[in-house]
């Protein structure tokens, strides 16, 4: 296993650094251990780490078989998600990459009619343009081992696990053959895409269960690698530079992660008017950048709930210095530095979380940061978000949620409790108060689930959306066959 030998505490930056020198498999182990130890936490670091790792995985992948590549990515993805199932964003990124691979494959499968040459990743697929609601995952437990303890699901045991799960009987066909189940929901587009046609032979109960859209191209071509590359360059359509295109797609994904905050911030002026009073919480960089962008042109007031006990230090830190403390420790020469809001002339009022209701009657808008956005329009955010959103609803104050698309996950929350992580009770009552900790059951939930009806608007890097529309964006970004990793 690749241990971080530097003096720095292990975290995102040490992982990314070590990735350059460490081979893939130890890197996977490394990330798994970092996730398990919560040394990489929160959506953005997890997303960055996962993309960086998958880039390596794809880069080091030997062979040209797309099915094998998908299987390889899936296998890594399964291990990562089972390491820390509540960091849903890890699974999101894995699915996005899988979608990339499939897209590249599809494009070449229908290469005779080259509609668009660039392997766009964040664009709607022809598949999903049906009016049907895509067959999405019903529960987290299908891909997370939460209900089955933290066991990394071996590829074959996934089926057993799920088959034993009573609540998922209705979905069982989907599990057995991941693409045929797709056909009933939208059969017409499937035929158009030829995707379904190719997959039909795979219906035989082969244990791989992965789409073998590549069967015919690979079967036909017994060309040498050299020829393959040349042919791909020439856009012959018969074969392709799978790896290169996927890696390019992943790099675009990395760009998206980097720029999503900026893209979200750029619409700030459309949402914040002069002299507004805005309530927010946590030390979210997305929210801070959003507000900062608006602060260039407008004067407004920010009321900041400090999110005690799990995020208050970072909150105070970001307000004082414009930087989270963890980021500060990670690397100092980071060019991603920005002024705190107060230096931009914005009045910031820090309040304890208990004051939210008292203040809410005077607040114009609530802006929430989020941990994960779910396909039904609900979200998982730092604890306290639910009561803030609820109080806002009671006062008819609009609630705006800022989230990068990468946080959007294809999970429908039927069992909310399994999405909620509970933290160290020592954060609530210090352990030196031993008598208290001993006798009283101290609970420290880290996240809240906020139902969709408490949210008025989502702003992602693609623009603003109603919560009810999110399933569509989910469908645009994830292939339904990848929803179960």
């Amino acid at each position, binding site marked *: 296993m690749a241990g971080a030998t530097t003096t720095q505490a292990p975290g995102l930056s040490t992982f990314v650094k070590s990735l350059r020198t460490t081979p893939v498999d130890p890197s996977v182990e490394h990330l798994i251990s970092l996730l398990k130890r919560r040394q990489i936490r929160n959506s953005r670091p997890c997303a960055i780490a996962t993309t960086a790792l998958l880039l390596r995985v794809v880069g080091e992948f030997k062979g040209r078989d797309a099915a094998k590549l998908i299987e390889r990515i899936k296998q890594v993805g399964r291990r990562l998600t089972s390491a820390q199932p509540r960091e849903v964003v890890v699974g999101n990124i894995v699915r996005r990459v899988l979608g990339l691979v499939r897209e590249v494959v599809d494009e070449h499968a229908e290469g005779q009619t080259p509609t668009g040459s660039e392997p766009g990743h964040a664009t709607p697929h022809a598949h999903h343009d049906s009016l049907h609601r895509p067959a999405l995952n019903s529960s987290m437990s299908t891909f997370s081992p939460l209900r089955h303890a933290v066991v990394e699901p071996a590829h074959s045991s996934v089926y057993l696990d799920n088959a034993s799960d009573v609540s998922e009987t209705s979905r069982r066909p989907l599990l057995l053959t991941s693409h045929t189940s797709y056909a009933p929901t939208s059969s017409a587009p499937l035929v158009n895409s030829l995707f379904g046609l190719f997959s039909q032979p795979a219906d035989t109960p082969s244990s791989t269960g992965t789409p073998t859209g590549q069967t015919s191209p690979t079967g036909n071509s017994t060309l040498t690698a050299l020829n393959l590359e040349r042919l791909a360059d020439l856009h012959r359509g018969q074969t392709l530079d799978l790896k290169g295109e996927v890696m390019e797609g992943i790099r675009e994904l990395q760009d998206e992660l980097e720029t999503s905050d900026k893209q979200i911030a750029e619409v700030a002026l459309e949402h914040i008017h002069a002299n507004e*009073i805005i309530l927010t919480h946590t030390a979210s960089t997305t929210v801070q950048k959003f507000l900062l962008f608006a602060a260039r042109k407008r004067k407004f007031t920010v*009321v900041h709930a*400090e*999110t*005690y*006990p*799990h995020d*208050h*230090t970072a909150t*105070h*830190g970001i*307000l*004082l*210095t414009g*930087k989270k*403390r963890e980021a*500060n*420790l990670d690397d100092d020469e980071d060019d991603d530095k920005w002024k705190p*809001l*107060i*230096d931009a*002339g*914005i*009045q*910031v*009022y*820090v*309040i*304890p*979380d*208990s*004051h*939210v*209701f*008292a*203040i809410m*009657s*005077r607040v114009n808008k609530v802006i929430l940061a989020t941990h994960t956005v779910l396909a039904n329009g609900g979200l998982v955010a*730092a*604890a*306290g978000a*639910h*009561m803030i959103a*609820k*109080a806002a609803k*009671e006062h008819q104050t609009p609630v705006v949620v800022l989230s990068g698309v990468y946080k959007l996950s294809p999970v429908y929350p039927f069992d909310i409790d399994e999405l*909620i992580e509970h933290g160290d009770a020592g954060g*609530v*009552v*210090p352990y030196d108060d031993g*008598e*208290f900790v001993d*006798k*009283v*059951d*101290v*609970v*420290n*939930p880290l996240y*809240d689930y906020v139902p969709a009806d408490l949210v008025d608007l989502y702003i992602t890097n693609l623009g603003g959306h109603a919560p009810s529309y999110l399933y569509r964006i989910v469908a645009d970004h994830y292939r339904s066959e990848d929803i179960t990793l």
Partner: protein
Amino acid sequence: MSDDIVAEVAPATEPTVTTSPTQDSPATANGDTADASKKISPAELKKQKQAEKQAKRAQAKSSTSTPSQQQGPFKDGSKQQKDSKQTPKDDKSRPLPLRRRPSQTNAPAMKEQPEKKPKKEPKQAGLFFGHLYSQPKQQSLVGASKDVHPAVLALGLQYSSYAICGSTARMVAMLLVFKTVIEAYQTPPGNSLARHLTSHHLGPQIEFLKSCRPLSISMGNAIRWLKDIIIKIDPSTPENEAKRDLVEEIDIFIRERVTAADRLIRDLAATKIQPGDVVLTYAASSIVEETFLHAHKSGIPFTVIVVDSKPLFEGKQLARKLANDGLTVRYYLITGASHAVKDATKVFFGAHAMMSNGRLYSRVGTALVSMLANAHSLPVIVLCQSVKFTEKVALDSIVGNEVAPAEELLSEAERRDLLPLKSRLATAKNDDKSTLEDIPADTTDVLKWIEDAKNLHYLQVLYDVTPAEYINMVITEYGSLPPSSVPVVHRLSTNI
């Protein structure tokens, strides 16, 4: 050591009052030096020297002044209290017999605010709470009128440091102190007791208490009642007899309106707890605590969820007491309230006051918890003695409220967590900060950063107003009633 000194205070505050002007001047001098020595920051060397000089002068002064003053130990005590930042307040013995143990402040931060307060004022006028910042909170004996009885001085400091906290406890403590005040009172020749005592003698005491912390609704009610009975005293009654009557009346008031009322409410409320219930409460209330203990003693199996919030952490004391008595207690902070409410079956709140429009005025955060409970269709039950009912009305938590010093918001531990930010701040600030590099970072620096940050404000109020529609029932000594009946009961209880 502060313990010893405070213990000494108790006898000192009790009997004789010789309000001599000499008491004031040394107290002032000492208060000043304490102030100055607190403010020393290495950046202000000049000020430090000045302060040192002042301290020497003051020392000389105090050594010359008679050490046998009655106020001596007391003023030292107050200074001591300020200096000892780290000593927890728990062991502080109370000079006054209290019906209820004061909910002690766990956050050591409380001890620090006194010095900073006056400087803070100009910046902190913000948001829509500006109107509440009119009067700086009195945190020391400096500037107290010489008419103020020492027992009242002690009480005032206990108010401002939250040693006595909670509207019932504050009211009872005040009445008990007024008993001593009345006992020590002598009508000056040419005045009648009824006239002089209310306006000239009790007036300054109340003013001082008000300057320490705004009066609670219950205190206001009690004061109105007390003035009323003083005025009604027959001028022909001999002074001693009148004083004795008054003291007796106060005792009766406490017994009837608090002790007996508590028992009635407790018995009634305990019947609302069914076996297997999970009762949620927020912060701490003496009457809720009594109810839980009573129900527990009568053998009803139930569990309690205590939701709490910073900075006072009153619920922690409650949870501790309940757990010590064998109840099953779960403890959440307010950020986890949405989770806590899910498991609860009933919600009990104490009250600071019940407004005449049926709204509950209580510890900030109560409204949030009751909102969540209401959303989960849980019955929300308020336990409140009728002495806390008021004819005042409130629509929101902003017009009428009590602000607390912003410094109290950050506890010692939180400030320590923020210290690593220093390097980042130092680059942003001028070079006068760089002189700080050699000195080990102090947690008070954090407050300084916040104060230096021009647009950053920390805001803290103590109460909020819960809409009547979130409240299902109010239990008083007159029985259980809907919140809409509060004005009726208020009239009933004041017309007797």
